[in-house]
């Protein structure tokens, strides 16, 4: 008996143990591997755990496309994408550490339980050394915890809650995506310029942890610049018709509505808000405004016309004109025929960053990789100079403030970048109260 879930990958084993061995060879994992799922053959397996069913299935599908593209680039296929613009030149296009990159996929169903089950099967059955993906914070935190226990690296996908690198941060987990605090810090100055300092905000918030952290962040940032928050209303996750939450806004005296919603919730609440004529309303002598702090192009598409002129923030957008973004859009667009979403971008970056860290560390050992990522500063992945902070494994980079475009030229051209808020403005101390309460702990390699 050993103390770990460590074992060797099934796929890798195939390469070395092809010929029948006459006698059973009994061994324990710890004697065979230095860390969980140490790749011993010519390949290394990554686990892409994304929502394939449920409301976020399209976002998950886009993430999968980006993963496949990243694997292709890592293995030397395609045009290399952002590998060419990446500031680190460690990757050679011959896999990672000379091993060909394989991948397995799974369905998180956007449920913590299912996501953990899927990640576990990747670790236990397929021998994945790294798990990545996801489209919600609940799933990210749940899977991050699992990876910590199992001794593999977790490269978070789309997760925006402060908690992922706040109170629920883990030594084995890394987040490239930005968070609620950063959204607020980036949005506040823009909102101040646009709408002034004498505003009264009304928050509608999805009633679960991500919504709460974003609400807290936005309220704090806007109040700091003089806004008044008249009400913060929690809406049930299962709500589809938000009319009864929008109606009280009409006579609340508020002149700004902040929608702390994502996905289907955001599409519906924004649609309902526009239906009720909030856009045309004048309150306190000012035009009524709606803010959607976390934007995504896929959601904007669902809300259609209603997003026009509405401000929010996003991690990345395909219209960016830096070399990295252009290279990524080109290689994604050529392969799939449409531009990538921010979810696709973040997971592509995460895969590249992981591969690069392994290459630089010279090992797949999670502790080696974590060391290589901690405090690592890089450029050329579409967000400008970016830092993977050692204290909480959060990436710090510029944040985009975007607006729904008035005259879109295509079905993908829905948002326009209003401002690129510089990294310095969205940084915060690791012990900031909104992120306090957790510990990274120490890295676990499963050995």
């Amino acid at each position: 008996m050993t103390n770990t879930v460590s074992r060797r990958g099934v796929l890798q084993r195939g390469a070395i143990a092809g010929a029948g061995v006459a006698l059973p060879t009994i061994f324990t994992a710890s004697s065979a591997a230095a860390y969980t799922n140490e790749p011993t053959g010519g390949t290394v397996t990554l686990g892409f755990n994304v929502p394939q069913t449920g409301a976020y299935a399209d976002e998950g599908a886009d993430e999968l496309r980006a993963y496949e593209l990243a694997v292709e680039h890592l293995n030397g296929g395609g045009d290399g994408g952002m590998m060419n613009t990446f500031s680190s030149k460690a990757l050679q296009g011959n896999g990672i550490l000379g091993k060909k990159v394989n991948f397995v996929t799974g369905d998180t169903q956007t449920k913590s339980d299912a996501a953990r089950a899927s990640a576990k099967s990747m670790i236990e059955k397929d021998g994945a050394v790294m798990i990545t993906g996801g489209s919600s914070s609940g799933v990210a935190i749940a899977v991050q915890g699992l990876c910590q226990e199992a001794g593999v690296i977790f490269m978070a996908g789309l997760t925006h809650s402060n908690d992922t690198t706040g109170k629920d941060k883990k030594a084995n987990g890394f987040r490239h995506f930005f968070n609620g605090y950063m959204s607020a810090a980036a949005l506040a100055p823009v909102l101040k310029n646009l709408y002034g300092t004498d505003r009264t905000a009304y928050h509608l918030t999805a009633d679960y942890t991500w919504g709460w952290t974003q609400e807290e962040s936005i309220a704090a940032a806007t109040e700091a610049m003089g806004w008044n928050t008249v009400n913060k209303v929690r809406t049930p996750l299962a709500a589809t018709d938000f009319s009864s939450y929008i109606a009280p806004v009409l006579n609340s005296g508020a002149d700004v509505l902040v929608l702390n919603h994502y996905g289907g919730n955001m599409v519906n609440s924004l649609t309902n808000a526009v239906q009720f004529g909030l856009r045309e309303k004048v309150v306190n002598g000012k035009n009524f405004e709606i803010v959607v702090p976390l934007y995504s192009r896929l959601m904007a598409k669902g809300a259609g016309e209603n997003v026009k002129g509405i401000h929010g923030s996003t991690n990345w957008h395909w219209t960016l004109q830096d070399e990295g973004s252009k290279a990524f859009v080109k290689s994604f667009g050529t392969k799939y025929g449409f531009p990538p979403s921010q979810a696709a971008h973040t997971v592509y970056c995460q895969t590249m960053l992981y591969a690069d860290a392994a290459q630089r560390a010279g090992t797949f050992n999670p502790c080696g990789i974590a060391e290589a990522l901690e405090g690592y500063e890089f450029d050329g992945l579409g967000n400008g100079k970016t830092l993977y902070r050692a204290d909480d494994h959060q990436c710090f980079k510029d944040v985009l403030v975007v607006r729904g475009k008035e005259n879109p030229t295509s079905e993908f051209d829905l948002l326009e970048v209003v401002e690129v808020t510089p990294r310095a403005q969205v940084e915060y101390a690791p012990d900031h109260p909104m992120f306090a309460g957790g510990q990274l702990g120490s890295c676990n390699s499963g050995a």
Partner: protein
Amino acid sequence: MDAILLQILNGLDKGSAYALIALGLTLIFGTLGVVNFAHGALFMIGAFCAVTVQRLLNLSFEVVDPDKTDFLGQPLKVKTPYVEAWFGPEMGGAIIDWAVPLAILFAIPIMIGVGYVMERGLIKHFYKRPHADQILVTFGLAIVLQEVVKYFYGANPIQTPAPESLNGIVNLGAVIGMDIVYPVWRVVYFLFSVVIIGGIFSFLQFTTFGMVVRAGMADRETVGLLGINIDRRFTIMFGIAAAVAGLAGVMYTPINSPNYHMGMDFLVLSFVVVVVGGMGSLPGAVLAGFMLGVLESFASMNEIKSIIPGIDQIIIYVVAIIILLTRPRGLMGRKGVMED
């Protein structure tokens, strides 16, 4: 005061959707004795009829415009819908604008057809099977239907706006000297559901067909003994129930962008509505639909939420429990229907 009136309106509007779905569900319960877990999927298919009509009207031919470029830097292909090319941009644009109302015409035959095929092809064989089997097979069917829709339309919500002229707001309170602005389309939706509900009731009340069906709901065997082919009428009733759910879906699309799992979202609620209304009672289903809609709206008012936090999350279930414990067969249920 106007805040309360506004919430009543919201409640009636939500209630319209509940009532329309529950009405069809009750018709199927009452006439065929079948627990139809695929009824939510019929609502969803209706909504996607609207999406389909919108897509069909937007079918375009492409002309390459060398002056503009797309996101990859290649010449942009400019799309012009055929409808606009045929009828001119003005007329064509108007037709596209009216996609959702037009979809009603499209949805009625489709939904009746879907209902007919479902009943003859599948449900028919489950009349005498236990309710558990009916649940399993209709649930399986619901999954299949929504996965098929997902395969063709994706999982993301798809925006299907109301016609421009019905997209604004209207001040309903002007008559009584109050300021109650309300979205036009929601008023349309409410009126539409009233018409449909009224239509179904008068159909059942005043036509011989309806009388036979009502008699069949009360006592199937006796009606069968009279030599009336009740099964065929029930098949038609199934088609009508499907059409009602489908139309509810078509008209709902401008309120909330449809997605493939919207049927499942409504399924549980509409079951609660039907049962609270009382099994086998059409007026009960309608009454419960509107009642739960209004109560749900009230529960989401800040004044109420500040007294009982989270009440809006559970109000429907609390009300369902209270009603079922005080009135054993829901609001207007008949004895012995689905009680064993």
